[in-house]
């Protein structure tokens, strides 16, 4: 069985696992600030297609990235059941739109494998590793830095 949630021991790390178009993904738990339900966004003019817009997170303006569109699954039509994972990277707060959050898991870093050569772009750019779980599922580990919208110029 999987281990229960534990503090980061040496060689282990905690991740938040979530689902997107029936595939399992995860990101490092240290990056995640909170998980909240979907709320309608305010669109940003001239923004790339995968930027859903901005939401109000207790007074801060937070960009929401449509992971489904970013990973090439096509634009999501968010409903009440969708979740937004609020993550922080390099001082910037960003919301990641996902279908649902499934688990918080502790994984051995030894078990993270490299990404085999796959044809599917753009997903390959954003996945840094694969983890095979004991129940046979495969977690795709996401690199947040790659995902985020470029601050300025992407829209030009």
């Amino acid at each position, binding site marked *: 069985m999987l281990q229960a949630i534990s503090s980061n021991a040496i060689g282990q790390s905690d991740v938040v696992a979530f689902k997107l178009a029936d595939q399992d993904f995860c990101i490092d738990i240290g990056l995640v600030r909170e998980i909240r339900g979907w709320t309608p966004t*305010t669109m*940003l003019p*001239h923004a790339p297609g995968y930027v859903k817009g901005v939401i*109000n997170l207790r*007074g801060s*303006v937070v960009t929401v990235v449509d992971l489904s569109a970013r990973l090439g699954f096509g634009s999501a039509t968010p409903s009440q059941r969708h979740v937004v994972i609020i993550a922080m990277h390099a001082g910037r707060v*960003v919301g990641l739109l996902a279908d649902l959050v499934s688990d918080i898991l502790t994984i051995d870093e030894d078990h993270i494998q490299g990404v085999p050569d796959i044809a599917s772009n753009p997903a390959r750019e954003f996945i840094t590793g694969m983890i095979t779980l004991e129940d046979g599922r495969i977690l795709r580990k996401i690199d947040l830095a790659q995902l985020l919208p*470029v601050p300025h110029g992407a829209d030009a």
Partner: protein
Amino acid sequence: MDEFREMFFVECDELLEGLANGLRKMEDPDFDKETVHAVFRAVHSIKGGAAAFALTTLVTFAHRFETLLDLIRSDRMDTPPQIIALLHRSSDCLSDLVMSARQSAEPDQAHVDGLLAELDALIEDDDPVADTSFEFTPIVLDFGDAPTPAPTAEEGIIVRMTPNFELYRSGNDPLALLAALRKLGDATVELNVDAVPRLEDWALERPQLGWTVRISGAVSELDVRSVFEFVDDCCRLSISRIEEEQPVMAQLPMADPVMDTPPSPTSAPQAPVAEVPPVVAPPAARPSGAVTEPAQGATIRVGLDRVDRLMNMIGELVIKEAMLSQVIQTAGLHESPDVVAGLDSIRQLAGDIQESVMAIRAQPLKLVFQRMHRILREAADATGKPVRLVTIGEQTEVDKTMIERLVDPLTHMIRNSVDHGLEDALTRQRRGKPQEGTITLSAAHRSGRVQIEVSDDGGGINRPKVRQIAEDKGLIAPGSNLTPSEIDQLLFLPGFSSKDEVSALSGRGVGLDVVRREIMALGGRVMIDSVEGKGTTFSIALPLTLAVLEGMLIQLGGQTMVLPITAVQETLQPDRSMLHGVGKDSQLLANRGDLIPIIDLCQTFGLDEAEKEGGVLIVVESDSRKRAAFRVDGIFDQRQVVIKSLEQNYGRVPGVSAATILGDGKIALIIDPEEIILSLSNDHGRHMAAMASNG
């Protein structure tokens, strides 16, 4: 240690500011004695602090500066304009030295040495042996028939006092003062009734009764002063030593012109030639009668980030309050008087708190204006034009962030006015103007904005020349039809510099376009007004704060957006007859004879197209007086919105200046009308330039 060091520099900033301030007061021939003391203390404190951090250059200079001030303080040196100018330069130099010490940079040693030599020359001229003789001055001055000191064996002090009405009204008794004086030594008291008017002219509020007290023995002036410590602002007082037989101490400045003592000869004669034009604060700028600065209350130092956090939370509170009132509305509770009253008082409180926090952040413009005196002095020296700076409304308060960011634009504008605005002394003379030019820096609150003006009494903008330069530089097409104010606007174009030769002063590759950009970044605008032969006025209009903005809420392709109300000129529901198509995509609005280009905001922001026919047009004007009509789907409210940065978590969005949070918790983008209009005219400008090069 670094922490203490930083604290020292922060203190230095305050001390230097007080120093410059005091020196300006000393330009007035009958300045308050206390001013010299304050100036001396400031330099002394800097010296003391600098010594603690082993800042040798700073200490050496401050010491010499202090010595000179001490001479003035003890009335061994007079303060004609040359000396004041030297003091100003020393103060500037001290400020530079503090700056270089702070940045651990090398000071301009040659400059420092030069000044030190000047200071030394003055100090060494003063013979300390002959020091009690007040009229001994180290520089040659024509004193006319200044009285020669008549040394007497008698030692003591003469106190002349004439209490004001204030003294009597506040319940003080002259008798108590006299009794206290008698305690200091062997005293003879004389009553002066010369000034007392005849009974029919007698006025209760103008008491003229005075006393002269001669106290013999070793009495120090300080002892006498301490007797009058609590009443010295409501009593005309002069203290002199018997052996000098002349009043030396300056009288406390009074609104009442009647003086019972002869004016001190030190203040009467002027130096025959003033080599350096004195920068004199206008007497009008000082409120008559007010002698002392407003009392300084207890203060604490608080980090700006704490205040900002408070400001953020209050922004939240305002939003939450709006949300709450919306919820109450939907729940149908808004008719209940209790709920309404409760909600109203919360709203009131939130508003009050917001104002209070904004008041914490608010600082008087004095902080910037004071620095401009130095800028002006340097500019005047560099151009050789005699100039004086008049400041009005220094107490006008604006947000602290703005204070800091106003320094550069104002510096540039002052330099620009001295360099380009004012004529040289000869031309001024020919035109019948006073040789000395005047630059007025004023500030005032005007309808929810702060208006700052820099005006000169120079020749005004030479419009044909400006036009010629713009044509030569390809900024406008030759022969374009421009109104005078449009020509003035050319000064703000990037790449425009009106002086043929690049001058050391304002021609540093920085043009007025930079000034405008910086002001715009603060949410303000710059305007020019120029009358030929009379002068030019630059006015800056700034919002009171960077935290909130009065906005018009508009509907645009299913989104709510905010348009700053300051840009809006009018809103109208256009008639079909007012709209005229030009080419395939463009449309013009004919409004009272003006043709205004229409910008479809839905198109600008890539939103679903609104139907071409419906909607509302909002006529907006940019700072450059360019107008456009924005087509929107509807307008539904006008309110204060809290400004939230979009760049922090995302980045810049073209045509959007920031974001805000609406009552329902949703985010609305704040439109930047300036940028949208400018993007239109930039294309236009390029088009014109292209035409010019083809023709």
